[in-house]
């Protein structure tokens, strides 16, 4: 049996991203089906049945998120989170560049289910081709009567507005995204209230990742039950995995959840560069805890299995690290990033991320002192769970896990004032 494919189901050519090509492979038939034969609640039910969990990182069940929204509210907003900024993650960009229409159709289906008149796609400001491809798709869709007033001649109207971000990682966090979309600097907000109750301009708002929404057309076409039959039991479907770092063939692969992590690295991506041994894997984007090479032996790519191994499935950005890499200097790349991206609103995150970066920087400069590792551990536990948004946790988990897993390397660096591996990052 060939594996079902939600994304990689066509050959990429010069015009495979156009409306006529998308229609040629069955595009917008899910929208036709929903608008002509289904009630909005039926769409939500299919999504609930599918077991689809959000692909933005937190893995929250999509149907359940939609069910919290009061669809009778005079205004409901939908925001597609296309801020793709978690280091190691590059899957949403693939969807924009190769199949923006699939996302547009998914946004329309979600809008229909949620009684949304205006939907927003908050796209990373740096995106170039992705942005142009999305605008092109929307223009084609508008001309074909698929977006705007009375879609396909029905009562359903929906406009889709593309909103460019300003280059802030934190704006991918949902409450920050909404503040940013309201025209302010992107400070996250305390939850509750959750956006589903009080979101954009105080109206009930659903925020979903690009990949999450682009999966909806498949679910409506084939049924939620069919989707639930794919992949792992509690984390159904297929997912886009982006593999980067020290592998021979990095890139995006669509695989059913529950697929062996080792297989994706050693078979699909051709193994480790230069035939080196596998040192470590960060399985779900830079914020997820690092695993040692031997720890991935039986790990499969679904939430439960990765959690059991001590990390998280996150965004599906798998970062592969070969033997010979200096984990101390690699961690500095991350502490610098989080210190730079902390919005500065809460003290534990603002001070903590700066402090962690300073201590790691000192160690890398050969000026680490005894007690630095304990100090770092104390800072991470001071941040975790004590901040407005999850960026604080995201910044702490790499520090805590790198030190825990590679303590000897950190101790060596502090004691000798130099790296055990010549400070190598590139292999």
């Amino acid at each position: 049996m060939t594996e079902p494919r939600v994304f990689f189901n066509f050959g990429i050519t010069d015009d495979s991203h156009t409306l006529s090509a998308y229609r040629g492979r069955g595009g917008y038939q899910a929208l036709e089906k929903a608008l002509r034969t289904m009630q909005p609640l039926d769409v939500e039910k299919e999504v609930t049945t599918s077991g689809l969990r959000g692909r933005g990182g937190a893995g929250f069940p999509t149907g359940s998120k939609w069910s919290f929204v009061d669809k009778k509210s005079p205004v409901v907003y939908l925001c597609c989170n296309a801020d793709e900024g978690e280091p190691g993650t590059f899957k949403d960009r693939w969807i924009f560049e190769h199949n923006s229409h699939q996302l547009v159709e998914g946004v329309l289906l979600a809008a229909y289910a949620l009684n949304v008149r205006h939907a927003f796609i908050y796209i990373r400001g740096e995106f170039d081709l992705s942005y142009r491809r999305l605008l092109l798709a929307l223009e084609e869709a508008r001309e074909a009567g698929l977006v705007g007033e009375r879609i396909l001649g029905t009562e359903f109207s929906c406009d889709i507005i593309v909103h460019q971000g300003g280059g802030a990682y934190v704006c991918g966090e949902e409450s920050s995204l909404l503040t940013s979309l309201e025209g302010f600097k992107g400070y996250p907000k305390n939850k509750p209230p959750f956006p589903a109750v009080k979101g954009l301009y105080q109206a009930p708002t659903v925020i979903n990742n690009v990949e999450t929404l682009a999966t909806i057309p498949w679910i409506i076409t084939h049924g939620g039950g069919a989707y639930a039959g794919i992949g792992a039991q509690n984390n159904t479907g297929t997912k886009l995995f982006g593999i980067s770092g020290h592998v021979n063939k990095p890139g995006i692969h669509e695989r059913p959840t529950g697929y062996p992590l080792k297989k994706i690295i050693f078979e699909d991506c051709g193994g480790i560069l230069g035939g080196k041994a596998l040192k470590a894997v960060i399985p779900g984007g830079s914020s997820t805890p690092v695993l040692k090479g031997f720890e991935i032996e039986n790990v499969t790519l679904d939430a439960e299995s990765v959690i059991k191994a001590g990390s998280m499935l996150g965004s599906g950005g798998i970062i592969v690290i070969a033997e010979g890499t200096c984990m101390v200097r690699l961690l500095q790349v991350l502490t610098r990033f989080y210190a730079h991206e902390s919005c500065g609103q809460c003290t534990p995150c603002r001070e903590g991320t700066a402090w962690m970066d300073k201590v790691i920087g000192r160690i890398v400069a050969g000026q680490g002192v005894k007690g630095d590792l304990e100090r770092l551990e104390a800072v991470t536990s001071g941040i975790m769970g004590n901040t407005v948004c999850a960026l604080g946790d995201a910044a702490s988990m790499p520090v805590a896990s790198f030190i825990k897993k590679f303590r000897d390397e950190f101790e060596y660096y502090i004691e000798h004032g130099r790296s055990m591996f010549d400070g190598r990052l590139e292999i």
Partner: protein
Amino acid sequence: MSCLTDKFDRLRATYPPEMNSSLVLPLLHLMLREKGHLTESDAIFIADYLGVPAMQVKEALTWYTMLHRKPVGKHVIKVCRNIACSLMGAERIIDYLKQKLGIEAGETTPDGRFTLLLVECLASCGTAPAMQVSDTYHENLDEARIDHILKELS
């Protein structure tokens, strides 16, 4: 400024009227494309146009890293320094660019042609190392490729 306000008007028409305040960032982006960099008076101009507090726009201007507040070169080079690119040689690429352009990160060449900036993950991790030159992505970088890219630029 009438040509600029025409563009403002057209952009404003694409948002629902009750979302006036949402136009702050889109207008800042639009003005940045027109002017290359933005100053406080640009923020005040947008605030007046939208009828929102000047403080709101000024704060947005200083908070979003993509909004240049200093003049930049004709070509802005943004090199990723994050994890996947670092594993594939970003440090080497950055050193090469610094040496070739004769500037440090954050600086502009004296002839005003190039600005070199270090940025975070560009979502090109599978084709690392990566950079953008005036928004266009360049991936799988090595020294020869950089020579070629810079030579092609006017």
